[in-house]
């Protein structure tokens, strides 16, 4: 072998598939039946307020053309409610939804455009394919709904079947499809309605873990070829990180954070996001501005870098300001005895309360001031004979500790 170099698929230039539109072209070639029939893709601007009994959802959204906004949140956060208001399946209590120059919902102005007239493609979590129709007729359904004859609609569905690799499955009924295939049909059907806005409700939730992996990559590719705004709802952090241009975190009907996925993963605003992305998150107040000492609410102190280690942004406000502190479990070192004075500025002791084997490492839960999750190798667990109840010492370099202002109830926009 004369030194071959391997490149991952990700670095290969993507060749457009058959039927995929060339750059600058809008949508697939539709047999010239509808030349430029739809208005150009537009920005989505929504101020959503819905009251359902005790539950109130309030969220502001702005999604540009071609942009993917992922709404991340736990069950019951109001994600599906948000999606249903945008799709026109649920009316707003208050607020306003605009797509470009069109107003879709405005309770104050007495405007409500029903679902069928919104040009809004919704991919349901359970896909909702029509069981009595073939894959081809499912995809042709929205074309037929707009008045095309059966033959014409089937013909116009073809580019979408090609584009999502469904040509060979075109004659099958939904019951004969795998989960991943059904997901592609649902997406093709939504796209065939030529939506100005694409909505996906937990697109991967109904799939098994293995299928999810490949479909996630596929979905990312298809979302990038859609030129309108897309909105994906999920409770899966990885899905959010892979698919999103921006992430909006929804908890208890409120937006708690919004920003690019990398930043949200590095500087979570709430315990929920921190747990999803596997970070230790603490709240506290800035004790000393020169040493970057933060006094934590749960007890203990941590010294942080004066800037974000990833992007260099200076983020330390005035002393006494409310702060959030994030530390990755791999950035913390664990010692059976008190370590000699080394370079790490943070050093504290605690007691092991639990050990959990992740795929290639062991996550050790340590209770102390502060408590922390620490990742070590399985070999280290054996070498140090780690067990619950054991007293250990933890260290972390200040440069590994990220501190940023706590928005304290208002959305953290980064």
């Amino acid at each position, binding site marked *: 072998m004369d030194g071959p170099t391997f490149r991952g698929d990700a670095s290969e230039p993507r060749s457009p598939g058959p039927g995929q539109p060339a750059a600058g072209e809008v949508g697939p070639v539709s047999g010239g039946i509808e030349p430029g029939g739809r208005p150009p893709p537009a920005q989505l601007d929504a101020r959503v307020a819905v009251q359902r009994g005790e539950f109130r959802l309030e969220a502001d959204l702005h999604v540009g053309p071609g942009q993917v906004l992922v709404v991340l949140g736990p069950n019951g956060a109001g994600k599906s409610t948000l999606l249903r208001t945008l*799709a*026109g*399946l649920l009316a707003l209590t208050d607020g306003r939804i605009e797509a470009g120059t069109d107003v879709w919902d405005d309770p104050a102005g007495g405007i409500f455009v*029903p*679902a*069928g*007239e*919104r*040009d*809004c*493609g*919704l991919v*349901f979590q*359970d896909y*909702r394919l*029509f*069981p*009595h*129709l073939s894959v081809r007729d499912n995809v042709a*359904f*929205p074309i*037929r*709904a*707009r008045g095309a004859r059966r033959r014409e609609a089937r013909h116009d569905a073809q580019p979408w079947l090609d584009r999502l690799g469904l040509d060979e499955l075109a004659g099958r009924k939904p019951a004969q499809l795998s989960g991943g295939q059904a997901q592609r049909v649902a997406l093709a*059907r*939504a796209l065939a*309605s030529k939506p100005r806005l694409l909505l996906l409700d937990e697109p991967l939730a109904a799939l098994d873990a293995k299928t999810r992996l490949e479909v996630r990559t596929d979905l990312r590719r298809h979302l990038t070829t859609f030129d309108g705004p897309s909105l994906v709802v999920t409770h899966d952090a990885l899905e959010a990180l892979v698919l999103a241009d921006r992430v909006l975190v929804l908890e208890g009907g409120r937006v708690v954070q919004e920003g690019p996925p990398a930043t949200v993963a590095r500087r979570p605003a709430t315990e929920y996001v921190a747990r999803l992305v596997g970070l230790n998150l603490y709240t506290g107040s800035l004790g000393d501005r020169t040493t970057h000492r933060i006094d934590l609410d749960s007890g203990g102190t941590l010294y942080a870098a004066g800037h974000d280690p990833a992007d260099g942004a200076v983020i330390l406000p005035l002393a006494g300001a409310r702060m959030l502190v994030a530390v990755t479990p791999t950035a913390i070192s664990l010692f059976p005895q008190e370590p000699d004075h080394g370079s790490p500025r943070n050093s504290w002791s605690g007691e092991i309360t639990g050990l959990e084997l992740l795929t290639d490492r062991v996550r050790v839960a340590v209770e102390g001031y502060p408590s922390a999750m620490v990742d070590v190798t399985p070999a280290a667990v054996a070498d140090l004979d780690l067990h619950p109840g054991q007293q250990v010492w933890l260290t972390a370099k200040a440069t590994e500790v990220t501190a940023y202002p706590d928005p304290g109830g208002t959305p953290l926009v980064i």
Partner: protein
Amino acid sequence: MTSTLPPAPSAARRASARSRRAVEAGNRAPWPLAVPAVIAVAFLLLPLMGLLLRAPWGNLLNVLVQADAAQALRLSLECSILATLASVVLGVPLAWVLARTTFRGQNLLRALVTLPLVLPPVVGGVALLLVLGRRGILGQYLDQWFGITLPFTTAGVVVAETFVAIPFLIITVEGALRSADTGLEEAAATLGSRPFATFRRVTLPLITPSLVAGGVLCWARALGEFGATITFAGNLPGVTQTMPLAVYVALEHDPDAAIALSLVLLAVSVAVLALLRDRWLRSMATH
């Protein structure tokens, strides 16, 4: 007896074998239930067997021809099919309204439209006469303005049969609409489908099995209709004399013909039951 002693091996084996058999066979019926059950079976099956035993098998065809069975059978089939079609055209929309909308008095309406299920058919016939008869509340205008007379015509037979049979279709289809997945209709709406198009392209195909079951049941009821038909439409051979009426008339002067005609209706009923067994009975069991 001491409880520490294990039972003899053979006895234990016998006991366990019996309990296993009991488990496999389900509960054994106690005699206060078993005896009436057997009597009920005999009560239901013996008359049918009597029909088979006493049938003039030798010249069955001859008897049927002489009794003008073909005429009565053709009239019966025509009228019952027309009544079924009328029930579908009117009953499916009503079922949809009952299943998918809410309004005041809905439950009362549901009870009223299914009333013909329990109403004695003769009463239905009298009621139809009062409304649609030549001097009835509506019938007089039908007669004066359009020259339409329903009583004692073939159309009257269809009206009487529809009146009695339509509730079967309505309750079957309404049940199907209630249990159908409205999520699919929602999906159709987001894809730009208008409500009636959604009904036609999504809802109707989904409830087709129940529609067929309800239609067959409705048709069977129309085919066997007697009381409302004879009251409202009379008993004119070739015009309003359907099979059940022909059987009744034949019984007075030609018992063999009555038996032969009954056999034909029995054959049709058995065929319907076989058709329904899969769809109707199973869907009833799961509801």
